[in-house]
């Protein structure tokens, strides 16, 4: 991946900021964001507004969200950099890893490969939208905690969303069926057996819930 250190300033470590704080900071300020592992800048400049942005309303996690969106903007970009929903990860931006998986009308999609303007009027659910309002985790999230399904967990929100979407349509899968159902997600730490253990536990918890 190119441009690994672009958040680090020339002066050295004393001025470093954490990636998360930086991201939350710029989102609060309404500006564009570069993340530590890849460099993303507004086309044609540093200002806060891009040419061709249009105010639209999206239904995200059950709430109407008003957001200015470029025509060429992907849903992953809007979620992360405009709405601050950074639980959705970008691993490849090419439909090749699953880290960006969200539900659109309850069906798993790669949000890196969907233009935001094509999901107007549809229901978008991200990892942030799974827990109940009082903070109670979704059964699949709870299962991940109990079974410690992940290592670095970069792939986790994508796996959880793919699993939740699959289970909505197939509530009682066998382990093999579930493995096939969530085969569109990669884990670079490669502990698929533990992930499947957690997801099968999640399926059981969902049936009981």
């Amino acid at each position, binding site marked *: 991946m190119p441009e690994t250190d672009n958040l680090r300033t020339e002066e050295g470590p004393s001025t470093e900021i954490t990636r998360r704080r930086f991201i939350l900071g710029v989102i609060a300020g309404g500006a564009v964001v570069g993340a530590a592992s890849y460099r993303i800048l507004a086309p044609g400049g540093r200002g806060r507004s891009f040419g061709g942005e249009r105010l639209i309303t999206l239904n995200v996690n059950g709430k109407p969200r008003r957001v200015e969106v470029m025509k060429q903007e992907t849903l992953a970009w809007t979620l992360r950099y405009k709405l601050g929903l950074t639980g959705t990860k970008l691993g490849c931006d090419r439909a090749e890893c699953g880290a960006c998986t969200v539900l659109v009308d309850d069906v798993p999609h*790669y949000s890196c490969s969907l233009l935001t303007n094509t999901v107007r009027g549809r229901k978008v659910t991200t990892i942030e939208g799974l827990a109940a309002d009082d903070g109670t985790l979704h059964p699949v999230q709870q299962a991940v905690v109990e079974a410690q399904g992940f290592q670095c967990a970069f792939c986790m929100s994508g796996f959880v969303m793919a699993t939740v979407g699959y289970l909505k349509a197939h509530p009682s899968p066998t382990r093999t069926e579930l493995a096939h159902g*969530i*085969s569109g997600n990669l884990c670079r730490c490669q502990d698929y057996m533990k992930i499947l253990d957690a997801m099968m536990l999640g399926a059981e918890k969902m049936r009981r819930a």
Partner: protein
Amino acid sequence: MAVIRDVMPAFDLLQPESAGDAQKLLQQHGSDAWVMAGGMDSLDWLKDRIKKPGVLVDLSGVEELKGVRATGDGVEIGAMTTLTEIANHPGIRKNYGLLAQAVELVASPQIRNQATLGGNVSQDVRCWYYRGGWPCYRAGGNICFADTPVGRNREHAIFGANRCVAVHPSDSVPALIALDAKFVVQTSGGERVVDAEDYFVGPEDDITRINMLRPGDLLTAIRIPAAWAGARFYFEKVRDRNVWDFPLMNVASAARLNGGTIAEIRIAVNAVSPRPMRLQAVEAAVRGRAADADTGEMAGKLAVEGAVPLQYNAYKIPLMRNLVKRAVAGAGQPQGSSTLASNALAQEATCRS
């Protein structure tokens, strides 16, 4: 590995709600317009800045292009029907299981939830030199980078190469050819309905186009005639990983048996040539013969006659012989998806026997 870049360069996004409006917009903008169905092929081109259309015509809001309808003679599948919907459709599974099987093996679950049949048949080749923006023949230049002494061509053609050695990558197409499907295309000169195999254009006819579509044209539907409903089907796809990967090769056949004899058969193979291949000579040779291993053996040998391997893809010859053999012999053969490693074992076994 793909590079994550800045957001795509700007384009205008037009979102028609009817096929008529879509066609009007496409004709209005001509070669500056790009049709976007599910976007699974389209967005890569735009993200990589290799293709730079000024206008994207997004078909996702055109409801009339979605869904499977029964017709007097078989079914009509709207171009914007997703691969998941086709794979799960009870009528398709029951009567045209060959297509359900083929689309179920495309890419990954999320991609199948988004990708459409129209996009799958209309997608461009995957040769990485071409996709990487190299000025090759297909891109309008005058060299093929894959067909040089150092070219990486393990995935490339063993048939039909003509300057360009890229292969057609679709999984659904061989199934549609075997089912004798018809493609319905709206052109500026009116509606055209063509046989599946005639939708595709080889480099000998026009090296920069992969199908008959010209700027302004719209594929609206694919019709499958009832003639092959419930026939004996065979589909197999071979790839390196069992998810995501394009076919190194795939084969599809539809056969009508009379007792143990092949009365009628259609066979198609993809990822072996720039145009999806229908094996008419093999079809003719096996008609009237027993659907067994001997006929399969003969069919496999005939199928690879005239194959010309490149430096790194000679494995495709025994692979194709093997796949065609199974597609003809049918019963008792492994179906579905396999990896090259498992097929290599099977080949070794056949070579030794």
